[in-house]
């Protein structure tokens, strides 16, 4: 909860913020996170705590591209923040189509179908996190383009005005990115996250098949010419000598850039296999890191590894967010990397040096065959970690009662020795779980006062290493959406991962299940923390004080309002940035698991949510896009 002094400090800093600074910000939303700095700050002026109660639906659009997995098609996971550019809204869909809409009416202007096969080749679902936009500054066909990636690694470029393919890009407008998948190619690349556009360069990562193989394609960052599709450079994150024994450390989520410094900041994921590292005990310094590269050359400028020898799949889940921090009268260009383990790492973005103390603390050691656990892990205690990840939530009395003590017995039975307790044959309580305290939505930052806003989940999971011989006997379904059995082929262990729950499906750990917090990044002080959203099980809602696990993230506006969907209860909300108090909400078809887009079109401010759902939260999917504006 907010303290009186923290509230006063935040309120004062809001009042003192120079309006000129805000007006310098854009109020378009031209990329996944709104700008290349991933601040998720929108300069819209009319949406304030006093006015958002008057929000109404401007329009609603159905893409038609949705599946719940019960038919022939895999389920869809639509986490695509819409983009607003060229006076148009562009949506990418999980059927790998692009849809261009009129921002004022939601009327369709054109659609483009990549005709990609609708097969879940790598991920357990058809996933899409949107499209990217580029313009040359000249006029003519394909001088403005929209890019869409597909599950089978095609990157499509189409004209932003007409939806026609741009023939000059790669092979008739389609780039086969899988042509560069030549090492340990046990699965194809999947382009689920749109590229980051910096100048005339597309910076592209890819997703793979998680938890399946020990030896997998080594992760890399590809820089591609936005006009021609030519590969400009490629940088790999796995040391060459380890490539025969491991792989990935890929970039599956959004990236950030600072064009002035000429750097791109890559959130690099964990090496394979994810939950056992006995074949990769040599250092892999770029894995599970935020790594800065020169945009022109791909040369690595610096790297900060936030998990040593990652055996928890605590891969870097979101783009770092840029912020300028005031310290001793000096302005320091910084970035904040939110992590699955709940730490917020604040680094000097020129050098990678931490701006708050980071402690290397001893962590529990593994007993798994061949495993050599890292002796320490970096703990960032300032700013305070989100979602209180250092303390395992207690057993929830209600779930324990309903299960006649099952939860208490589980607590005694399974291993837990603090955060970073290794996966084990005995079964390990895993907190924060694999979906993380934070995920792809990341944080939002108000650059006027270096205030950070973040939603966090508190999910406890159970992970068990299953010896290979035993795993081969298991007939259960393989791999779900972040749960179930996964083989980790080539290692001595398969895994079983599930939420820690009782027979009725109730979580065994005590609420809150999700929170929303704000931090002053100049001082590292937490300004407030409050439960966010409502948990929902079989339709029944929990009380507000329980909060909800979340996927997706916030946007903060110049008017002092935070917009956030993300919760289980399928509501999209406006919060007061000063306190986290709910100001407005609306019920939508499913959890809105992407950050919204907030922009000004023809003098009117809009908030647009893509409502896709995600079975990690609850079994509900949708194809709904909803736009809000103030009553006119």
């Amino acid at each position, binding site marked *: 909860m907010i303290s009186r002094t923290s509230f006063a400090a935040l309120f004062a800093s809001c009042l003192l913020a120079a309006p000129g600074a805000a007006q310098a910000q854009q109020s378009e939303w031209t990329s996944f996170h709104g700008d290349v700095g991933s601040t998720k700050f929108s300069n819209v002026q009319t949406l304030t705590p006093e006015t958002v109660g008057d929000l109404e639906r401007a329009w609603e659009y159905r893409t038609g591209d949705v599946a719940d997995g019960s038919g022939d098609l895999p389920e869809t996971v639509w986490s695509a923040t819409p983009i607003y550019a060229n006076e148009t809204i562009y949506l990418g869909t999980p059927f790998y189509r692009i849809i261009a809409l009129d921002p004022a009416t939601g009327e369709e202007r054109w659609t483009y179908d990549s005709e990609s096969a609708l097969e879940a080749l790598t991920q357990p679902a058809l996933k899409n996190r949107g499209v990217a936009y580029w313009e040359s500054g000249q006029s003519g066909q394909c001088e403005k383009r929209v890019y869409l990636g597909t599950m089978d690694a095609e990157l499509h470029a189409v004209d932003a005005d007409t939806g026609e393919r741009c023939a000059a890009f790669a092979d008739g407008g389609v780039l086969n990115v899988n042509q560069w998948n030549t090492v340990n190619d046990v699965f194809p690349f999947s382009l689920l996250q749109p590229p980051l556009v910096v100048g005339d360069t597309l910076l592209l990562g890819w997703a793979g098949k998680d938890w399946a193989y020990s030896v997998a394609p080594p992760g890399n960052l590809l820089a591609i010419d936005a006009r021609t599709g030519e590969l400009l450079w490629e940088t790999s994150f796995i040391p060459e000598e380890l490539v025969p024994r491991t792989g990935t450390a890929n970039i599956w989520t959004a990236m950030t850039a600072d064009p002035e410094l000429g750097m791109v900041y890559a959130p690099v994921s964990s090496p394979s296999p994810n939950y056992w590292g006995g074949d990769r005990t040599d250092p892999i310094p770029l894995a599970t890191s935020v790594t800065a590269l020169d945009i022109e050359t791909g040369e690595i400028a610096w790297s900060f590894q936030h998990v040593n020898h990652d055996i928890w799949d605590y891969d870097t889940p979101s783009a770092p967010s840029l912020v300028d921090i005031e310290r001793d009268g000096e302005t320091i260009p910084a970035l904040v990397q939110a992590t699955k383990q709940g730490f917020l790492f604040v680094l000097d973005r020129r050098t990678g040096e931490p701006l708050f103390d980071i402690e290397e603390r001893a962590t529990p050691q593994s007993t798994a065959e061949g495993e050599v656990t890292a002796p320490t892990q970096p703990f960032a205690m300032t700013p305070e970690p989100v979602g209180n990840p250092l303390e395992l939530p207690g057993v929830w009395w209600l779930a324990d009662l309903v299960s006649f003590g099952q939860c208490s017995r589980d607590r005694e039975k399974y291993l837990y020795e603090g955060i970073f307790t290794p996966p084990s044959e005995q079964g390990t309580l895993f907190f924060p779980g694999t979906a993380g305290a934070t995920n792809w939505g990341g944080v939002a930052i108000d650059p006027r006062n270096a205030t950070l806003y973040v939603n966090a989940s508190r999910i406890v999971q159970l992970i068990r290493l299953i010896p290979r011989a035993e795993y081969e006997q298991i007939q259960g379904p393989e791999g779900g959406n972040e749960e179930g059995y996964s083989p980790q082929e080539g290692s001595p262990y398969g895994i079983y991962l599930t939420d820690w729950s009782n027979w009725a499906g109730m979580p065994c750990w005590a609420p809150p299940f999700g929170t929303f917090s704000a931090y002053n990044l100049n001082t590292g002080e937490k300004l407030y923390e409050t439960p966010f959203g409502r948990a929902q099980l*079989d*339709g*029944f*809602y929990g009380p507000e004080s329980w909060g909800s696990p979340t996927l997706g993230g916030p946007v903060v506006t110049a008017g002092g309002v935070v917009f956030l969907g993300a919760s289980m*209860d*399928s*509501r999209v909300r406006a919060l007061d940035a000063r306190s986290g108090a709910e100001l407005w909400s609306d*019920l*939508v078809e499913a959890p809105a698991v992407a950050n919204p887009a907030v922009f000004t079109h023809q003098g009117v401010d809009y908030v647009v949510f893509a409502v896709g759902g995600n079975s990690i939260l609850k079994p509900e999917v949708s194809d709904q896009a909803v736009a809000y504006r103030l009553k006119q």
Partner: protein
Amino acid sequence: MHQRFLAILLLAAIGTVLAVVAYAAPLGNTGVDGTIGALLALIGAIVTAAGTALLASGSVPRRFASLLIGLLVLAAVLTAVAGYFLMQFGLAIVMALTALALLLAPFLPSRWSSA
């Protein structure tokens, strides 16, 4: 026909309609449509309405009437509680009133009890 149960039947019928709306969402998304919770609430409302209809018809032997009323009060209360946690507050209120009316029905004046 037992008139005092007709009014209660009307309440239970309204509750059933509200439960159908919550579960099947003919008027749009309710946030709980298609869920097990909403289905349980619908079943609870239907059971309450059907039992009340039996009482209203006068076909329940006197010795079973009190037992049936007790079971219906329980069904209505559980449905009201379900409605509350489903955030279907109209359903919760109507079913709470139904439970209250069923509870009071045996004490109503006899002139209300026959047609």
